């Protein structure tokens, strides 16, 4: 009964973790910002009366990832669930003219996840149990001119997770790819979004919890994004490239 959240300063992560806490799981929050980290852990302790730990973790400090995982396992050796939620939307326009922004988008959404995931995968594989869930995005299902930097990193991530899932399947380890649509978070605040499609972090968090507990492989959340993306993916490229999406 334990969960590790990597990228705790995400409302989606906290909403999902709240479901785990209510079910009585111990939680380790890992996050770069130390102040935020202690606040999140303290809030959970008060709100849910569960054991909470915090571990400082920087997704971009690849060489520190092994140590971070070791720190977590020292706290809860029998770690059961891992939820990876860190990511970075960035701005498409600046990523096009400034490679450092593109690099950051790729590293935070792809390279960083691959780095930490492999360490956890090895651990779970050797124990022959465990659950890993990673937040990808519907944006990774098809490249669009308006956010293909972010989309391609998430797309790569989704493919990576597919492979990892097959590899770990035989060890009894589940890998869940979460593909949220628009969620009402500080990341998306101030963006022009179609209100009716925007979900609350609580709704998405609940979906993630259920999908993790039930050992699902891919979860579109809210569910209707599966249909939307089915349609988006089916548009022939010759037409798609002319669209202003």
């Amino acid at each position: 009964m334990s969960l590790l959240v990597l990228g705790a300063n995400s409302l989606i992560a906290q909403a999902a973790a709240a479901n785990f806490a209510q079910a009585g799981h111990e939680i380790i929050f890992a996050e770069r910002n130390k102040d935020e980290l202690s606040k999140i852990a303290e809030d959970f302790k008060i709100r849910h009366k569960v054991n909470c730990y915090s571990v400082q973790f920087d997704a971009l400090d690849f060489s520190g990832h092994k140590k971070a995982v070791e720190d977590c396992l020292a706290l809860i050796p029998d770690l059961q669930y891992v939820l990876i939620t860190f990511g970075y939307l960035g701005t498409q326009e600046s990523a096009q003219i400034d490679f450092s922004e593109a690099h950051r988008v790729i590293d935070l959404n792809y390279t960083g996840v691959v780095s930490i995931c492999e360490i956890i995968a090895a651990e779970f594989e050797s124990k022959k149990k465990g659950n890993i869930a990673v937040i990808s995005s519907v944006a990774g299902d098809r490249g669009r001119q308006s956010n293909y930097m972010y989309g391609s990193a998430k797309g790569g991530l989704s493919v990576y997770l597919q492979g990892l899932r097959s590899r770990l399947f035989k060890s009894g380890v589940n890998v869940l790819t979460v593909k949220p649509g628009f969620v009402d978070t500080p990341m998306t605040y101030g963006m022009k979004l179609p209100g009716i499609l925007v979900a609350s972090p609580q709704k998405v968090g609940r979906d993630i919890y259920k999908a993790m507990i039930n050992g699902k492989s891919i979860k579109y959340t809210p569910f209707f994004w599966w249909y939307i993306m089915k349609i988006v993916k089916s548009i022939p490229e010759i037409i798609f490239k002319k669209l202003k999406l």
Partner: protein
Amino acid sequence: MEERAFKTQNSMKFEEMELSGFGKYPKAKCKVTRPTGIEDLKEYLKEGPMVGRGLGRSYGDAAINKGGFVAESIHMNRFLAFDESTGILRCEAGVTYENLLDTFVLRGWFPPVTPGTKYVTMGGAIASDVHGKNHHKAGSISSFVLSFNILTASGKVMKCSREENSDLFWATVGGMGLTGFILDCEIKLRKIESPYIESKAVKLGNLNALFDKFEEYDADYHYSVAWMDIVAKGSSYGRNVLFLGNHSKLDELPEKLKLRSKEKHIEKKISVPFEIPFSTLNKVTISLFNSMIYMTSKNKENFEHYDKYFYPLDSILNWNHIYSKSGLIQYQLNIPEDRGKEAVDKLLHKVVSFGGGSFLAVLKKMGDQEGILSFPFRGYTLSMDFPVKKGTIEMCRKLDEIVLDYGGRTYLTKDSILDEVTFKKMYKGLWEKWMDIKIKYDPENKFTSSLGRRIGLCPS
């Protein structure tokens, strides 16, 4: 609602949208932001004047700022520390009554003062210095606020309590968000044995009986509030039902409720999904509704769950939608104790003569005043809802005159129509004192709201 996304010069995000309070009147275009902490707030302060906003449950324009920034506390809602032995909680300003109740009731703690809805943040509660059905006994929320941290206009975070920066403490409590942005607070919760309220309803035929009963039950009940049928005429005029209550002791509960006391409460909610395009409230429906309440109320003693007792309207989400697009005015006034009965009688007659029935009219006894601009003082408060239509505002102005005549005042959190002159008469001796503190901490009026400008607490 048209939403437009923008960025400030410092590339801080905001959405330009039309905002209103819970009464949906008035409305104004504001630059809405959702800061995640102090650093964000400081950046916005550099860009222009602002006011904080919790869940937008004040009725009028207290949490709107025409053309300026409105900073929503939605992302600042964490519990920071809790002491199980004393019940002292430190939490961020965006924590709501709902959050408090969900977390603490089953552990035996209750908010010491609660307004009639749980969709209120602690920041909003302090800025309005909210009161509840126990004001005559316990005072307003500020009686239980030990301290708070506030971001002031200079960008400095100041800790305020009765001992430390006490001038700012008393100006902020009930200060309608005009002294700064409340970041977090420390409040003392009340120990309870069960989530149930031992309630008693007393049906009364007229106003005299009600005022007598307020006195009679004063000592025995922690909570008291009366509902009045203010459309009834003739022999039914002034008929009312007095609702009393105390927190139930565990061993007084029936076995069934003793067991339920330990379970998480699940409430059923219905919603008014859209604004009803025409007003469903007219003389006939209001009169029917009020008669129905009176007829179906029984003289009885009962155990009621706190949710039903304190927050009956919360079970109907967006109930304000029944007032159609034009919205409602909630008119709440307070009259000094000694002339309370006479004034209430006069006010009711005035409302009846205007034919402006109120869907819900509530009367309650109030205790002593806390903050400088806090609404409550020892007396009787009457609150009424009026649909906004032709003649409503004129009627309210007439009511203002009566309130002033009796040395009373109206509640800024509910207000949307008061003008500067009337406000300054109602809060005479207080607003001047408050203004000195405002000028000391916010000389350039970086914190301002549509309400503040309307009633002359901030320059327009």
